[in-house]
C-alpha cells in the first residue's frame, strides 16, 4: 500500500466529514429520521412500500431534504467553497451499469454510505456495520479487478 500524499486532503475531509455528521445528527434530533440518501430518494420514487415511513406525511420532508441537497452546489458557487471537479474514470455504458447496481443494491440492502455507513454505525447498528464492511469490501475488490487486472479505466 502506497499512500498518495499529494492527493490526501485531511483538512477538507475533516471539515466536510464534520458537516456530514452534523447533518445526520440534526435530522435525527429534529424530526427523528435517518439521513440516508438512498432511503429518502427511493421512498419518493414509484413503487415505494406504503404504510412504512415513506407514504403520506413522510413525503414532504423527503422532498425538502432532496431540494436542500440539490441546492448545495449553488450555495457553494456563491460562497468561498469551490465545487471540486467531477472526474469519472469510465465511459457512459459503465456509468449506466454502475448506476443500476447502486440503485438496485441500495434498495435491496436498505441503505448506502450515509444511512448505513454514517447513521447506522453511529447508532450501534449491526446491520449498518455489516452492510458498510460489505460494500467497502466489494468496492475495493471491484476497483482492484478494474484497475489492476482488466485495466478498464483509461
Amino acid at each position, binding site marked *: 500500500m502506497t499512500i498518495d500524499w499529494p492527493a490526501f486532503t485531511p483538512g477538507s475531509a475533516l471539515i466536510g466529514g464534520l458537516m456530514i455528521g452534523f447533518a445526520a445528527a440534526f435530522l435525527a434530533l429534529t424530526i427523528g429520521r435517518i439521513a440516508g440518501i438512498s432511503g429518502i430518494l427511493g421512498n419518493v420514487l414509484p413503487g415505494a412500500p406504503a404504510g412504512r415511513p415513506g407514504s403520506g406525511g413522510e413525503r414532504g420532508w423527503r422532498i425538502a431534504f432532496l431540494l436542500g441537497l440539490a441546492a448545495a452546489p449553488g450555495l457553494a458557487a456563491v460562497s468561498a467553497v469551490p465545487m471540486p471537479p467531477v472526474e469519472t474514470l469510465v465511459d457512459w455504458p459503465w456509468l449506466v451499469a454502475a448506476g443500476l447496481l*447502486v440503485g438496485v443494491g441500495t434498495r435491496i440492502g436498505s441503505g448506502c454510505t*450515509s444511512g448505513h455507513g454514517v447513521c447506522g454505525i453511529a447508532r450501534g447498528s449491526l446491520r449498518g456495520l455489516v452492510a458498510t464492511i460489505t460494500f467497502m469490501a466489494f*468496492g475495493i475488490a471491484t476497483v482492484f479487478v478494474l484497475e489492476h487486472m482488466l485495466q478498464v479505466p483509461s
Partner: protein
Amino acid sequence: MKAIAAFLCGLTLGVGLIVSQMTNPAKVVAFLDVAGRWDPSLAVVMGSALLVAFAGFAWVERRGRPMLGGDLAMPPRWPVDRRLLAGAALFGIGWGIGGFCPGPALVATAGLSIDAAVFTAAMLAGMAVANRLGAAAASARRTFSREPSDSAQ
C-alpha cells in the same frame, strides 16, 4: 417546520460532500484503490462524520423523541439477513465501477455534471425496479404468510 429542518440537513450534507470532495468519483475510487496510489481522505471524512453522528444519536436516544414532535423512526439494528448482504454487495460493485454513491451522485448532478446525470438516471431506474420487486416480494410473503427464514438472529 419539519420541511425546513430537512432542507437544512440536505443542504449541510451536500455542502459537506462538496467540501470533502466526495462528489469527485476519482477521489472515491482512489480511496477504494488500496493496491494502487491510495488516497485515505474518505476514511477521514467517515471518521469525523461518525464522531459527530455518534454524539448526536446518543443524545437522540436519551431524549427518546424528536425536538419538532412526531415519532422517532429508527430502522432495526439487526438481524443481518441475506437481503442486506446481497444489496450491500451489489451497491459496492456499482460504487467501485462508477465512484458514485447516491448522495454525491445527486449533488454532482445538481452541479451540472453530465456524467453524474447519466449515472443518476440509471440509479433512479434501478431504485424504481427494486421498489417494484420489493413490493412484489412483500405481497408474495403476505399471500403465503411466511416469514423470511434467513435471519441470523
